[in-house]
């Protein structure tokens, strides 16, 4: 049996000395390609983002264990490197750096990974080409449409060739046509690069593209198909 891409066992996350229980014992397994395009659905506040943060090494679980490609996450003392090389984040609000242009935003994750200036720029140009933004290299994020900003954010998430993309409400700020564009891009990347996608959303349109859909409520996974 192939090693799952992501495995989560009994994850609990509490805040405020245990008063707030955001996650109440999550069990989850993301199978390898082609079943690694997973959508997490559920109402706001059900714990989707918290789960993504734990998987991305941005936060630590109160209880439980996480394995990424069979390796326990809690044993890693290089979470910065883990985030830089194995994880790509896509956020609802894009989170681009407004002081930099589109090309530079894509280059940011590559700084310090041993690539030369020229290699970084070439890679960023390729990625912007990949997401259909060939003519927007020098444009500030402020001057881009929301769909274009999300495309830059996706290109940035792909910069270091991660094996997992964690997307938190990636279409929350987009109209339905742009949402469809972004989803088609996700599917294309999934098929081309076999990247694991874990997308938190409450948008049914997103769920329609998934290989697996998990439903969350009150910090627990209540249903999966």
């Amino acid at each position, binding site marked *: 049996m192939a090693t799952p891409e992501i495995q989560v066992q009994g994850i609990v996350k509490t805040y405020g000395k245990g008063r707030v229980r955001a996650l109440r014992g999550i069990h989850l397994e993301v199978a390898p390609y082609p079943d690694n395009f997973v959508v997490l659905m559920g109402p706001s506040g059900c714990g989707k983002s918290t789960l993504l*943060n734990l998987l*991305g090494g*941005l*936060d630590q679980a109160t209880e439980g264990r996480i394995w990424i490609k069979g390796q326990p996450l809690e044993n890693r003392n290089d979470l*910065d*490197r*883990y*985030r*830089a*090389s194995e*994880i790509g*984040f896509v*956020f609802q609000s894009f*989170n681009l*750096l*407004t*002081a*930099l242009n589109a*090309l*530079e935003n894509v*280059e*940011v*994750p590559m*700084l*310090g990974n041993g690539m030369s*200036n020229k290699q*970084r*720029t070439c890679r960023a140009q390729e990625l912007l080409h990949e997401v259909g933004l060939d003519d927007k290299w020098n444009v500030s994020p402020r001057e881009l449409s929301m769909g274009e900003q999300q495309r830059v954010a996706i290109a*940035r998430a792909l910069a*270091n060739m991660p094996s997992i993309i964690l997307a938190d409400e990636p279409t929350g700020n987009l109209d339905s046509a742009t949402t469809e564009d972004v989803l088609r891009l996700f599917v294309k990347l999934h098929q081309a690069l076999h990247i694991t996608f874990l997308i938190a959303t409450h948008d049914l349109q997103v769920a329609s593209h998934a290989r697996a859909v998990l439903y969350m409520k009150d910090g627990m996974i209540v249903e999966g198909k």
Partner: protein
Amino acid sequence: MSIFTIIRRNLLARKTRSLLTALGIAVGIGTMVSLLGLTEGYRRITLAFTDLLKSDLLLLDRRIADLNPRLIDESIENDLQRMPGVASIQKMMVGVVGFEDLPGVVVYATDPPEMILNFFRIHEGGLLSSAESPEILVGRAVANSLNKEVGDYVDVEGVLHKIVGIYTSPFYVMDATVVLPLRHLQRALGRQGKVMAFGVGLEHGSSISDIKMLIERRHPELQCMGLAESVRKNDLLRIAEAFIWAISIVALTVGGIGAFNTMSMSVFERTKEIGILRSLGWPGSRIFIIVMTEGLILGVIGGMLGCVVGIGLDHLIEATARVRGMIVSAFTWQLCLKALIVATFLGSFGGVYPAWKATRISPVIALRSE
């Protein structure tokens, strides 16, 4: 693109914030530069007064610190001249004499008379011809007050003195003085055969300490100071320097707190950006370097601005009617360098805690902030 591109873009993207941070540092540094410039000016005035004698050693009566110091007997001049290593002797007398309509004017007398050129600039006319002739040099302010010109006469203690020259000085107060031949001043003060100080010029290669010891052994009533020592012993200068340093420390503290506060606010405003960088896998150390470097750059810019502000402020103060001619500022490249070093330190110091704090922010909390 490199880390420095990000630093440059960050500074330029928030021009107002960057400018205000640099200005915060500039105010502190400007205050320091201004105060130290004034101290330096004061020190130069003091040096110039001492330099009046153009001597290596200054001989004063030991009781000069008393309110009524005794004058030195002029007769010891012969003994001084015979000492090995002594090249020249100068005599100086200062007193206050009333003449014409002026109730009291500071009067200088030097022997040789040309010594006065070390300090005053002859504006019209020439020098006193000897230590004996009934001549007088008057400062520009005195000449104006008496409405006299070169060639006119003034009555000093019943003796008519011909004005042979009018002088000016960089220091306004010195323009309100006059210079008499030594003998005439001694007579006017009723202190014939007395002088206030001797200046001793030494032959090249002579030992100041040996001659000082010899003079003090032969004339225990005299206090013998090297020029540098006499300046160092100037209590007023030392008090003024200490006072101005204290004010500078206050100015620097205020500037430092301002810089620190501005840098902290700048990091606080960028919490989300820091969260984004952390989510992209940037280590805290890299974020620390960025915030620190930005602080350093703002410190250097603030330091340069501070030097300009400080120098400009002092020129403004000098031009103010209330202090014109009485306060003089002086700037050296060492002072500006010192200011730049302090500003760089301030910028870095202002950036250290915020930078450290930036690395401690939880990425999740940082990403949630707006």
